[in-house]
């Protein structure tokens, strides 16, 4: 699937809805579960929703800065969890 066909068929609002749903599921998990490791996993889920939205905006606007941000977020997450 080439870039142009994605632009014509999937609007960016669909990516916004998808990552909003993912973020809300992660938030529900953080509020609902009590196991510490599952809490961390739900935070991972929320971070991934944000990463997906960053990437979608970066691709649609033709600007690489968003993907650099995602790269930094991934680095920080791996740092966090490894020092845990």
């Amino acid at each position, binding site marked *: 699937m080439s870039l142009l066909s994605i632009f014509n068929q999937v609007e960016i609002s669909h990516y916004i809805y998808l990552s*909003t749903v993912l973020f809300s599921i992660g938030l529900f998990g953080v509020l609902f579960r009590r196991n510490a490791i599952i809490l961390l996993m739900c935070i991972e889920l929320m971070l991934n929703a944000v990463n997906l939205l960053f990437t979608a905006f970066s691709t649609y606007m033709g600007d690489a800065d968003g993907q650099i941000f995602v790269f930094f977020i991934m680095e920080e997450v*791996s740092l966090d969890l490894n020092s845990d």
Partner: protein
Amino acid sequence: MLALISLNAKSGLNFNTMFQNLPIPFLILSFLTILSSLYVVTSKNPVHSVLALIFTFFTISAHYVLLNAQFLAVVNLIVYAGAIMVLFLFVLMLLNLSKETEPVKSNWWGIAAAITAGSMLLIITAAFQVTGEAVAKNPVEGIGLVKALGKVLFTRFVVPFELTGILFLAAMVGSVLLGKREKNNAVLIPKEEGGNS
């Protein structure tokens, strides 16, 4: 609440026509992502939810490929599915947390959490209603490849990149120090006990 609903009605958000023109791969991937992330949250067994989280990361990587961000897809697979998930599984099995030892929460807590998350979903959706039309579509080929991203990373973002390196160094030193101090305490305590007796 009424304002939100009227906003929805005004912008013509129709759920019947919303999913009609979407390509099949996107639909299947989104469905799998949401389903597996729901399983992460609701599953009783922590090992099952770790495995579901791995599956969620795989589908998000597939989304990155659909978005032409190939570098991020590969990095996501390596970092999350490779390193972090193995770490989670390792901790779960090492600390023997995989049994269902979680204290049972009352129903009210679940209802409150669902209401909070649902209102968050509603508010973010309503806030982003206008954004989709405002984003200019500017297709640039090959923006997510390693070459293009590396050029940006090592010209405009050199300083944050080096700062991340320093942060990694600090974390390494910190974890080594913490591990060592634990060992010293373990050695010291029996000696004191021996001296007392």
